[in-house]
C-alpha cells in the first residue's frame, strides 16, 4: 500500500533481472547472428560483435529454397488454422449446447486425443498418407491437425458461459443455428479464438518433428526444417548462420505475439479455464 522507495528499487531490480533471464537468450541469439564464425567461439563471450555481418542472413536464406519454406510454413500454419476453426467451432458448440446421445462418448474421444504425442502415432499416419498418395505434400502436414482437441476443450468452456437467454433472444429474432454461432457465439468467444489461434499457429509454425517425418523433398518442407539443415552439417556448426536462420524463423511469430498479447489474458479471464 505504501510506496517505500527501497521497495520500489528492489522491485525495479527484480523486474530487470526477470527481463534479463528471459530476454537475454534472444539478445544472445541476435548478437550471435551477426558474428563471424571465429567470434562465436571466443571466450569469454562477446556481447557486441566487431562488425554486423549481415551476410549471415543471406547465407542462411540462401542455404536452401527459403522462400519456398516460408510459403510452405505459411500455407501449413494458416491452412491448419482455418480447418481447425472450421471443425472446432461447430463441435465445441454442439458439445456446449446440445444434449445428444453419445455426446459424452464423443467428448471423451476428443479428450483422449489431447494426450497423444505425435511421436507415438506418426508411423501409421505415415503409411496412410502414403497409401493416399499424400506423402510429401502439404496435405500430409495439414490434415492430421485439421481439428484440435485442446481447441474444442477451450472453446466449449467459453461457449458454455454464454447465457442461454442470448441464444433464445436470437431464436426469437428468427436466427438460424448457424447464424447464432457465427454472429453471437464466435464474436463472444473472440479472445479465446484469438488465443487459441495464436497458440496453434505458433505450434505449427515451429513444428519440427511432423514435417521432418512427412516430407521428403524441399517442395513441401517448412522453415524449421530449413533451419535445422544448417545444423546438419558433418563437422563444425556455423553458429552464426544457424542463429541468423533461427531469427528468420522467430520474427514472424514475434510479430503476431505482440499483436495478440492483450487478448491472451482476457481470454483466460473470460473462460476462467477450469
Amino acid at each position, binding site marked *: 500500500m505504501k510506496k517505500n522507495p527501497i521497495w520500489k528499487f528492489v522491485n525495479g531490480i527484480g523486474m530487470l533481472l526477470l527481463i534479463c533471464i528471459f530476454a537475454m537468450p534472444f539478445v544472445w541469439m541476435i548478437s550471435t547472428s551477426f558474428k563471424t564464425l571465429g567470434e562465436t567461439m571466443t571466450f569469454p563471450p562477446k556481447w557486441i560483435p566487431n562488425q554486423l555481418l549481415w551476410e549471415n542472413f543471406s547465407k542462411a536464406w540462401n542455404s536452401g529454397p527459403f522462400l519456398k519454406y516460408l510459403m510452405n510454413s505459411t500455407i501449413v500454419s494458416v491452412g491448419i488454422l482455418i480447418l481447425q476453426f472450421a471443425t472446432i467451432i461447430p463441435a465445441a458448440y454442439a458439445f456446449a449446447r446440445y444434449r445428444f446421445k453419445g455426446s459424452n462418448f464423443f467428448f471423451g474421444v476428443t479428450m483422449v486425443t489431447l494426450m497423444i504425442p505425435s511421436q507415438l502415432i506418426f508411423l501409421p499416419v505415415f503409411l496412410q498418407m502414403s497409401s493416399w498418395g499424400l506423402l510429401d505434400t502439404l496435405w500430409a502436414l495439414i490434415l492430421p491437425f485439421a481439428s484440435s482437441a485442446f481447441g474444442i476443450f477451450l472453446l466449449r468452456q467459453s461457449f458454455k458461459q454464454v447465457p442461454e437467454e442470448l441464444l433464445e433472444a436470437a431464436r*426469437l429474432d428468427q436466427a438460424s443455428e448457424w*447464424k447464432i454461432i457465427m454472429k453471437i457465439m464466435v464474436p463472444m468467444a473472440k479472445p479465446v479464438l484469438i488465443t487459441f489461434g495464436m497458440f496453434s499457429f505458433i505450434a505449427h509454425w515451429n513444428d519440427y518433428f511432423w514435417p521432418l517425418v512427412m516430407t521428403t523433398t524441399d517442395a513441401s518442407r517448412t522453415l524449421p526444417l530449413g533451419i535445422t539443415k544448417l545444423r546438419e552439417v558433418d563437422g563444425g556448426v556455423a553458429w552464426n548462420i544457424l542463429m541468423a536462420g533461427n531469427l528468420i524463423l522467430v520474427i514472424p511469430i514475434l510479430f503476431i505475439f505482440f499483436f495478440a498479447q492483450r487478448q491472451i489474458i482476457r481470454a483466460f479471464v473470460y473462460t476462467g479455464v477450469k
Partner: protein
Amino acid sequence: MAEIRLVNIVKKFDEDTVVNNLNLTIEDGSFTVIVGPSGCGKSTTLRMIAGLETPTSGEIWIGDDCVTNLEPGKRNIAMVFQNYALYPTMTVRKNIEFGLVNKKVPKAERESLIQEISDIVGLTDHLDKKPHQLSGGQRQRVALARAMVKKPKVFILDEPLSNLDAKLRGQMRRELIQLHKRLGTTFVYVTHDQVEAMSMGDQIILLDKGVTQQMDSPMNMYHDPNNVFTAEFIGTPPMNILDRVHLNTVLPTLFENVKYVGFKPEHAEIIGETEERRTDHVVLQSEILTTETLGAETIYTVSNVAGMMNVKSFDNRIMESNVVQIAIPYEKLYFFDEQKERIRFSEKDSAVSQQPKPVIVGGV
C-alpha cells in the same frame, strides 16, 4: 387479433411438474402481469408462450392459430429478458437490426425503422455504443427497442426491471405503462414483485406452484383476495393472517368453518394503551417491535397474543410507549376456511354479527 389462450397446459421437467393444467386467456391489447413467488413457473409459462419451451401437453393459441409446435422465430412474439440478453459484441444499432436482417427486411426500411424506434426510446445518441458502455436503464431500453422494432403481435417481458435500482425501476415502470398505451399491443409481463404487478397490470394472474391462484384486476386482487395465498402475497406489507384459535377470546362466536382471520395493515388503528375500548373493533393489546418510517406512512411491527403483525399508519405521531392497543373494525376482517380459501358471507359482517361485545385479550 392476438389474444393468447393456454389450454390445459402441463409442463414437466423430467418428473417435476412445473406447470399443472394451466388455463389462461390473455386478452388482446391487455397488459397482463403474471406474478408469483420465485420458482412458481412464471418464466416457464412465458417461455412456452414464446416457444422456447414445448409444453408436455395442452395447447397454446395466439389469435386464431394454434402455435404449440411453431418455432419461436415464427410466432411474431418479442421478448425482453430479465438481464436483457443484449448481444454484447454488437452495437446498439446492430442489436436492434439483428432480427430485421434475419427477416430479410431491406436495408433502407431497416434504417428508417431503427431511426423511428430509437427516437421513441431515446437512444438515438447511443446507437453506435456497445451494451457494456450503457447504463442499466439504457440497456433496458435497447432490449425494448429490439423487441419493438419487430412490431410483434405480443410483447413478453420476463422481470425486465429486477436488475434496476429502486429509482430507475419506478421510472421505467411508468415508461412501460405509457409504452403499452401508445402501442396498444398485448403485453405479458412477469414479475415476482407484487408492487410492480399491482401498479402495472390491467389484469394480474397470480401463480403458485404452477397453479393459478387468482386472475383478476389489481383492485380486486387487493380488496377481494380469493384465498390466503393471494392475501399474503399482495400489499406492502401484506394482509395479516391470524389463526382463529388465538382469537377465540376476542372473537369467540365465529362460524365453525372459519379457520383464519385476516386484516390489512392499514385497516388497523393504533390507540394508546389507556384509550377506551371500541365496540365494533377487534382490539389487541400489543408491543411495538419495530417502527419503519416511510415518510407519509409508518409501518409498525407489533407482537401480541395472536403473533407478529404489521400495522400501517398514515399519521406520523410519535408513540410515547411501546405498549399499545391495535383496533381493527369488524367490517374490515377477512375470513378463510381450512383450505385457506376465502369465505364470503352473503351479508357483510355476518361472520361476527352474533358477537355481542368485543373482548380485549390481556397480556402481551
